[in-house]
């Protein structure tokens, strides 16, 4: 059987849905910590449920990733680019999984109730501890910036494939079988 030329439809749906959610999430997070206005409050109320939604979706996505066949990278891609592509995808998956967990853990470590809405509360996953909170909160911020940088590199690379190399990489995520 030949390798597929495109990602599976479910994989493409998850990719684009999560792309929107993650970019929204990064902007929401950056905006809320830099605001003292009412924006701070409503962005925070969006940030928490959206983070848990991303956590659930990334689990589904990992299952899809490991159970569907993915198109190979172009054979003529230079070795360092192929390696960077693989490493950056691993990093994206790790950060998508780790950032919501860090958010959940840091709220737990602060001793704050983990409220997803006015009445929906998730259990705490860590005991309250000030120093643990400080560590997790900083990691959450720094790793979010790392995720944003990785997303920018991912975007630039996708456009490079589509506009400069003009190979099948961008197309494999944009379109299905023709």
């Amino acid at each position, binding site marked *: 059987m030949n390798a597929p030329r495109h990602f599976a439809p479910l994989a493409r749906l998850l990719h684009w849905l999560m792309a929107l959610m993650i*970019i929204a999430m*990064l*902007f929401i997070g*950056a*905006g*809320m*910590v*830099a*605001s*003292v*206005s*009412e*924006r*701070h*409050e409503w962005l*925070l109320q969006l940030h928490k449920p959206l983070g848990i939604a991303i956590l659930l979706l990334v689990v589904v996505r990992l299952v899809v990733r490991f159970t569907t066949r993915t198109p190979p990278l172009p054979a*003529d891609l230079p070795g360092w680019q192929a390696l960077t592509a693989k490493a950056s995808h691993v990093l994206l998956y790790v950060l998508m999984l780790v950032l919501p967990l860090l958010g959940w853990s840091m709220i737990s470590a*602060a*001793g*704050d*109730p983990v*409220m997803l809405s*006015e*009445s929906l*509360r998730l259990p705490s996953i860590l005991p*309250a*501890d*000030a*120093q643990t*909170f*400080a560590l997790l*909160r*900083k990691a959450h911020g720094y790793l979010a910036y790392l995720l*944003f940088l990785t997303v*920018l590199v991912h*975007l*630039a690379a996708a*456009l*490079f494939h589509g*506009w*400069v*190399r*003009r*190979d*099948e990489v961008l*197309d494999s995520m944009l379109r299905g079988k023709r």
Partner: protein
Amino acid sequence: MVDPSSGPRPPLSAASLTLRLAGIAVVVAALAGAFAYVNGTLDPQRLTPKALVNVLETNNGVHAGFRRNHSKGVCVAGYFESSGEARAYSSAQVFNDARTPVVGRFALPSGNPYAPDGSVPIRSLALRFTQANGQQWRTGMNSMPVFPVGTPEAFYQLQQAQSPDPTTGKPNPAAVPAFFAAHPEAMPFLQWIKTAKPSASYATETYNGINAFYLVNPAGQRQAVRWGVVPMSQDAADAAPPQGADFLEQDLGKRLAAGPLRWRLDITLANPGDPVNDASKAWPSDRKVINAGTLVLESTQAQDNGECRDINYDPLILPSGIEGSDDPLLAARSAAYASSYLRRTSEVSQLPATRESRQ
């Protein structure tokens, strides 16, 4: 099968390649630029939580591990006994259950953890109610009836007016009067502070939530309210403050050794049209007040290692049945407390008590 899309593409002309690479750079720069605007980098005029906490540090110095404001205080613990009267207005469990545990903190409204107790006429009380369902109600209250200003921007300017002048190293004595001259909304506060004296005890003070909130009942009806706690023991309320710098904590310990201290939780119901978005404005005194129950404080702990130390008394941590109003100070307090909380939790090991216990 011949696929026209596979196989080598004709090479791009130098002009086309440059244009395409520039296109990629524009897309990436636009996204990065939008992000830099949202996070404040490209919007330096915006009042941020960081700027609010920084000005407090400028005025008071950095005291590692301590709160950046209301730095000197003491932890207390006890419980709240609901009278049931607030049940008609709010579905919050705290008003329904007979008893809800409380961890609180009395403090002075200064950013200096070593300020003498007699140096300011205001005392504060922060409370955390932990409901049986795991939801929490946190509130920070002050002994003044109104806040000097109604917006975070004005609060920031008031702090700036108290900042040391870079040339003299001292605050400009004309700055605070100039601020108040430009801020007539501060009149009710200024009227009050004229006659306010530093109390000899935390126990004899009334503490007002000042900001407005909404109580929401099971039918979804919203009632704008302000709350406060009124001491049930009024003894020696007019006593002159004793000598020494730390008489409040000693007085509290002495009183608690003799028995629990009680406050009545009063909830004032707004009439339609009362300002719910301006903490500098009092409500008329004829508003209906319900007695929601009794706050009973039983024990005290030092703040350096007591339970209140690691609690961020964020006024927007609320249970279902209580909601924030559109008072702009609430979101600002929430945002600034988060910034102060991260700074001080990063410095817990530098607190004097933590250092001593290691030696």
